[in-house]
């Protein structure tokens, strides 16, 4: 007897019935056939009306008519409604009705008259027909070939009919009904559609790719509509997508595939025949019996149609599919990977005569990925809906990034190696570049093909390409926040590209930088069992007490010198606790308490008769006394003298806490807590509190407050003396069944509960992360906390920000314990039976310069970069009237505050000594923060920053002073004023003289008034001024403009000068980058167009390279003289406002509207290290200072900060191999032969770990 349901393939029950089908029968939608429903409905009518009713309702569904009539007959035979006339003869007459008809023009069957044969397909003949009767209309009638079970077809159609009727979309041709001819052939009646198949239409109309895709998006919309109504087409192909003369698509044949598909493997050939061609069939459709099909099968078919429209052929050659047998065809559809559309076009091109123009237009790789995603073999990889496919196409048309992306490296490489086992490296390279479309354009590949005669060169290139793929995978992992995995990819890339210095260096840098993002292992212990529970740190030494599943004795694991472990000679202990000095440990089992000496390990005292419900032990601060639950009452024990005092109070059944001040005991029972004095007679400080059943309570800080969970689930903080509620944090009881745990940080500032948000008691409005785990630990210094999440990972959160730092552990089994070492340096956690000890990362990358006025804004640097002068001036808070100088080395002030009344607009160190110039505004409404266009007023004044004394009187200037510049060798200070006046102040006499006046002044630049800058050329001959609406160059020797002002035409936000070349990013009109040779006054080269606001236009110190960044969101570096791009665009989500070269000129750093500063390699465009977050609003300026040691970061709101480039780019102390090994250990994974990421088994992990330890210790 079969054990599988023949109908649906489900396993049959032992009694031989199919539960799925039986349940199906009871579902409302399928519970009754149409005939049954009609029959049942007819019973409500008088007997004589029943036949008429059924006939009227049934339409042309002859089968339903017959069935309903037979039921009615059966009902009559049984006796029917008692005493009413029987209908037997009438029914019989109806049942015997039926004429024979043949199909030809003019044939009439039921109420259709065939008018014209429209087409003939694999499935049958399509007729245009006239419907008469109640509805008179032209329809298309599709008569299915004989050979099908008509009843089945019609029945299946009926099943979907209601849903089909719900579809109402201009691009969906309606299917009205199905029926059977007198010959017993099924037919479908459909809306008559005039139009051409989409592929024919496309060829005839020669649509552009854009037009084609727009049309295709409409088709997607129709299919999406059907999907929303629950209808899957199942047979989408060009001939089912018709386009009329107006260009409106109509999708035909909905519901027909379903009705005509046999749900049985044995009929597969028939199915294939019915569907005409399997070229559009999704792998799951080809593989299954059609039961496990969802809307993504249509996504696949649409993808194939699009593929064909773009390339001219479907992904799989229909002729080839037709020739093969069913099994082979299934195999091709399920397993064979088609080339990308653009590759397909290229191949066709190579095959054909190269001189004939290709009928197919080229397109970007994005469209490739959209199509490839739609026709993924695994439907999980496809678009989830046709709407998503349409959306991505729309994005493609709008030049926005599409969601489809090249598959991950492991996936690609896996597939690649599967396919190309025997291929030569050269072939592999070409294929790689074709398939992956990474480094090479098709043209380059073509060139490469010719050039790569030498296998060696090909091999090298292939290896480097693979290394780049590893780097790419690393960058992808990093973007997802998987720092450990990223490190692994980078380490592999470094090792692979070891012959190429540029790649080697960049990837080694990445390895070290990313590794510094997370904790590093320092020791690991294998318990040899499956679970490790308790972990208790020694207060003074790196040692842990560990409880292990199935081990009779707990152990001490000691890392204080070299890792070692020993067994504590106390069997079956329940509780353990280190003495405060860390020199002894107390343990208790069901019968005794013990004191064990550390590191000796000997039992030095024993106390017997303890309570079976042993609660934890509490040491006094001096380590001399212990509170221990006795047989009935709480006891005090002095191990040294073996003195033992029973108290008068019952032993707590759950927890026991002794306050730091040792005057208070908190005793926790199952349903209440008690707060008692810690000295006889142990009086209650206030009446016992009810608590949530079996929940935990904590003494906070020194112990004057305690926290617990109230019976209604709230977290309460109470005073120990009065018991009064001080704080009530709302909470709820989650799905616990064994009480609620509550954790408090050492100072009592933070409270944590499973499934609740972290509470910061100092910040009531703090919305902390939701902690979800049954073990949480606070670092003793309260710099972070670690929580288990989902029982699988330990996530550490930074305090007080609450942001995630990292995730450690990734196991199928819960980590049972997590604890920070007392010095907050190490984190111990158990995972499986392993206990891992990790050193927390050095996260101290950025040093804030703690100015007393932390308002952000620009700063001035002293020439030797040892001091800085905050200038502030953010328009929203335009009130900085004083400033002072700070040392860059430690951020300490280097002089008293100074300033004279007005708003500081700019400042400048005049010498490396103490003199600074301040540009001060006295414009009356400056403080209101209004956007200014009028010239305003102000003065310039010279100060001694060390003494805080004014050196000069205020030097009046004609309008608000903005730009300041010091002449390179004369005692001159240039001032650019908002009204367009450019002056020079003689620093001996403090007399100002006007150089020239331009008609156009500066206006403010948005929120930050940095508009209006000036500087001298390196030789001092030229004064260059720039800002909002201003940019001009003045020749001081000739007293004339080298570059005259171009009012209202040029705004320059950034420019840069090296030697005698001036590069300026000009925006507003004809956005461009101009190059002026100051020596000749002529352009140094042709302008670069720049599409957007160029915010960064910076020449590298060597003058060779130019960094451009800004509103086009594509930062790039050029070899500007030779007009060569030095790497791909570096895309940012928002506009950079500033950027600069890293010291070696191989990388750049960018900052702007994004809340993070990014570091990228120029050559590859990929990140060089993780982005550095900042919290100061926009980044205004980035400067590499102190001979490349530091990066000075200036932001909108926060203090200036120094980022240590040495720490940001650490150098790995390990060899490449060691780096890889360490990365594997961190990621708990390895990169397999075929480039996939593989999880390490526990055994492998331990082997790697031992291997690493051997190499490093």
């Amino acid at each position, binding site marked *: 007897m079969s054990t599988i349901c023949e109908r649906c393939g489900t396993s049959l029950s032992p009694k031989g019935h199919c*539960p799925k089908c039986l*349940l199906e029968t*009871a579902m409302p939608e399928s*519970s009754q056939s149409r005939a049954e429903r009609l029959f*049942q409905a007819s019973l409500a009518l008088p007997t004589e009306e029943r036949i008429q009713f059924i006939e009227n309702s049934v339409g042309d569904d002859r089968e339903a008519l017959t069935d309903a009539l037979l039921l009615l*007959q*059966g009902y*009559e035979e049984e006796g029917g409604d008692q005493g009413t006339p029987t209908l037997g003869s009438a029914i019989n007459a109806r049942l015997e009705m039926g004429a024979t008809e043949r199909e030809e023009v003019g044939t009439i069957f039921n109420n259709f008259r065939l008018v014209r044969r429209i087409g003939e397909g694999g499935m049958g003949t399509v007729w245009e027909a006239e419907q008469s009767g109640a509805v008179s209309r032209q329809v298309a009638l599709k008569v299915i070939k004989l050979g099908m079970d008509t009843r089945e077809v019609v029945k299946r159609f009926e099943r979907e009919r209601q849903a089909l009727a719900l579809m109402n979309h201009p691009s969906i041709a309606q299917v009205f009904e199905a029926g059977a001819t007198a010959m017993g052939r099924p037919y479908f009646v459909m809306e008559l559609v005039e139009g051409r198949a989409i592929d024919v239409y496309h060829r005839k109309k020669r649509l552009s790719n854009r037009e084609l895709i727009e049309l295709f998006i409409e088709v997607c919309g129709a299919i999406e509509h059907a999907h929303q109504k629950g209808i899957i087409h199942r047979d989408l192909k060009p001939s089912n997508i018709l386009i009329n003369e107006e260009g409106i698509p109509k999708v035909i044949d909905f519901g027909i595939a379903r009705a005509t598909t046999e749900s049985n493997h044995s009929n597969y050939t028939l199915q294939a025949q019915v569907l005409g061609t399997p070229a559009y069939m999704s792998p799951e459709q080809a593989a299954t019996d059609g039961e496990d099909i969802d809307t993504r099968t249509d996504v696949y078919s649409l993808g194939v149609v699009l593929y064909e429209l773009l390339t001219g052929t479907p992904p799989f050659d229909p002729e080839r599919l037709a020739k093969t047998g069913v099994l082979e065809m299934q195999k091709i559809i399920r397993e064979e990977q088609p080339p990308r559309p653009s590759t397909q076009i290229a191949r066709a091109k190579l095959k054909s005569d190269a001189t004939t123009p290709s009928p197919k237009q080229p397109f970007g790789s994005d469209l490739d990925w959209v199509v490839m995603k739609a026709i993924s073999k695994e439907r999980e990889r496809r678009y989830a809906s046709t709407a998503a496919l349409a959306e991505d196409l729309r994005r493609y048309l709008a030049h926005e990034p599409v969601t489809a992306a090249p598959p991950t490296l492991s996936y690609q490489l896996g597939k690649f190696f599967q396919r190309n086992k025997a291929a030569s490296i050269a072939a592999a390279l070409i294929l790689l570049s074709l398939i992956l479309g990474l480094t090479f354009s098709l043209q380059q590949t073509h060139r490469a093909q010719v050039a790569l005669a030498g296998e060696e060169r090909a091999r090298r290139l292939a290896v480097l390409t693979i290394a780049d793929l590893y780097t790419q995978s690393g960058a992808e992992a990093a973007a997802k926040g998987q720092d450990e995995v990223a490190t692994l990819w980078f380490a592999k890339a470094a090792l692979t590209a070891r012959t190429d210095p540029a790649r080697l260096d960049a990837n080694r840098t990445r390895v070290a930088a990313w590794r510094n993002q997370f904790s590093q292992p320092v020791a690991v212990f294998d318990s040899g069992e499956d679970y490790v529970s308790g972990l208790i740190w020694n207060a003074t030494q790196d040692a842990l007490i560990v409880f292990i599943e199935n081990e009779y004795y*707990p152990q001490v694991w000691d890392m204080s010198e070299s890792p070692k472990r020993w067994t504590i000679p106390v069997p079956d202990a329940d509780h353990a606790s280190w003495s405060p000095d860390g020199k002894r440990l107390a343990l208790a089992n069901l019968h005794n308490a013990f004191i064990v000496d550390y590191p000796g390990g000997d039992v030095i005292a024993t106390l017997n008769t303890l309570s079976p419900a042993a609660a934890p032990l509490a040491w006094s601060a001096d380590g001399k006394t212990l509170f221990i639950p006795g047989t009935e009452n709480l006891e005090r024990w002095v191990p040294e003298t073996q003195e033992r005092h029973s108290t008068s109070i019952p032993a707590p059944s759950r927890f026991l806490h002794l306050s730091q001040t040792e005057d208070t005991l908190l005793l926790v029972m199952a349903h209440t807590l008690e707060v008692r004095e810690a000295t006889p007679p142990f009086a209650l400080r206030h009446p016992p509190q009810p608590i949530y059943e079996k929940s935990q309570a904590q003494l906070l800080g020194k112990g004057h407050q305690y926290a617990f969970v109230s019976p209604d689930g709230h977290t309460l903080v109470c005073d120990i003396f009065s018991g009064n509620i001080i704080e009530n944090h709302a909470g709820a009881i989650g799905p616990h069944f064994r009480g609620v745990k509550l954790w408090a940080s050492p100072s009592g500032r933070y409270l944590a509960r499973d499934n609740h948000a972290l509470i910061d008691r100092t910040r009531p409005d703090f919305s902390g992360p939701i902690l979800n785990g049954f073990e949480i630990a606070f670092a003793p210094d309260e710099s972070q906390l670690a929580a288990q999440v989902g029982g699988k990972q330990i996530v550490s959160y930074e305090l007080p920000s609450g942001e995630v730092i990292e995730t450690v552990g990734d196991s199928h089994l819960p980590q*049972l314990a997590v604890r920070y070492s007392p010095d907050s340096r190490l984190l111990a956690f158990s995972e499986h039976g392993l206990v891992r000890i990790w050193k927390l990362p050095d996260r101290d990358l950025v040093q804030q310069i703690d100015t007393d006025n932390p308002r952000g804004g620009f700063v001035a640097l002293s020439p030797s970069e040892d001091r800085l002068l905050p200038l502030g001036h953010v328009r929203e808070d335009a009130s900085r009237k004083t400033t002072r100088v700070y040392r860059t080395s430690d951020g300490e002030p280097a002089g008293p505050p100074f300033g004279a009344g007005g708003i500081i607009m700019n400042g400048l160190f005049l010498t490396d000594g103490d003199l600074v110039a301040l540009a001060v505004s006295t414009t009356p409404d400056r403080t209101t923060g209004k956007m200014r266009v009028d010239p305003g007023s102000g003065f310039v004044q010279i100060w001694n920053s060390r003494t805080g004394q004014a050196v000069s009187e205020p030097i009046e200037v004609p309008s608000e002073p903005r730009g300041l510049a010091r002449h390179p060798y004369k005692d001159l200070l240039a001032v650019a004023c908002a009204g367009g006046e450019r002056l020079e102040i003689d620093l001996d006499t403090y007399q100002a003289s006007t150089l020239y006046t331009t008609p156009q002044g500066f206006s403010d630049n948005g929120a930050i008034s940095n508009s209006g800058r000036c500087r001298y050329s390196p030789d001092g001959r030229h004064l260059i001024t720039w800002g909002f609406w201003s940019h001009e160059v003045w020749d001081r020797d000739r007293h004339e403009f080298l570059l005259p002002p171009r009012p209202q035409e040029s705004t320059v936000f950034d420019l840069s000068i090296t030697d005698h070349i001036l590069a300026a990013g000009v925006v507003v009109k004809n956005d461009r980058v101009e190059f002026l040779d100051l020596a000749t006054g002529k352009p140094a080269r042709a302008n670069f167009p720049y599409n957007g606001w160029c915010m960064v236009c910076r020449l590298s110190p060597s003058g060779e390279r130019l960094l451009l960044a800004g509103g086009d969101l594509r930062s790039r570096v050029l070899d500007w003289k030779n007009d060569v791009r030095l790497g791909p665009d570096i895309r940012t989500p928002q506009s950079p406002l500033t950027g600069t070269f890293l010291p070696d000129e191989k990388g750049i750093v960018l900052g702007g509207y994004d809340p993070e500063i990014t570091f990228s390699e120029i050559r590859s465009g990929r990140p060089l290290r993780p982005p550095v977050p900042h919290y100061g609003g926009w980044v205004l300026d980035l400067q590499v200072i102190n001979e490349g040691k530091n990066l000075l970061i200036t932001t909108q709101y926060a203090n200036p900060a120094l980022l240590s480039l040495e720490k940001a780019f650490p150098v790995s102390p390990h060899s490449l191999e060691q780096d890889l090994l360490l990365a594997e250990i961190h990621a708990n994974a390895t990169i397999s032969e075929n480039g996939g990421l593989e999880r390490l088994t526990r055994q492998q992990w331990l082997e790697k770990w031992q291997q690493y330890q051997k190499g490093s210790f």
Partner: protein
Amino acid sequence: MNDNPTSSQAPGAFPATRWTLVREAATSDPAALTELCKDYWFPLYCYARRLRDNQADAEDLTQSFFAHLLSKDGLQKAEQDRGKLRSFLIRSLQNFAIDEWRHAKRFKRGGFAQIVSIDAQEAEERYLSEPVEKLTPEVAFDRAWASQLLEDVLNKLSQSYHQAGKGPIFEKLREQLVPGGTQQPYALAAAELGMSEPAVRIAAFKLRNRYRDLLKQTIAQTVSNETEVEEELAHLRAAFVN
């Protein structure tokens, strides 16, 4: 059996179900709860079997689970429950299994006592991550539950037909319960039963109606209100969709 085939639902309001009654009186009448739950020991065992590596452990778990159900704790939980019987049982068993696991550890190893709150989700995730015959324990449970339910319904159906002397009709037509199957044509069945084809058709029609009513009644025993019957039916069917 001879009732009007149009009456597919008993008239009147949705009656208090056995499950609601039993649940509300769980502490006062523990036997009723066990009696009701006992019918479903097999699905519970299926679930337990996927949690435990061997038969003995799974049996132990199922047995001790029933003991737990009868305990004060279990009965109180039942009284507090507002959901379906199936959900209640699987939830309780999930909790119980984890509890038991913890419990065993706790008595063996002291340090464990500090780890108290573990929720059903965590347990579920843990077991979901281990592929056992492709089915998750929950789906296995649901499938077994549905089979058990159907078995009961078919038994009742068979009984009532046999009692009414219509045993042969039931046996001949039980295949017709499922539409579109490979059942023999009505004409053939009619010939074998010595009835006319229309009579056989009407008998099959009634059988299906009767079956549907019985199934819904049986499901109604395990849920709290009428709307949940359809829900439950859909849920159980979904368990068989891959």
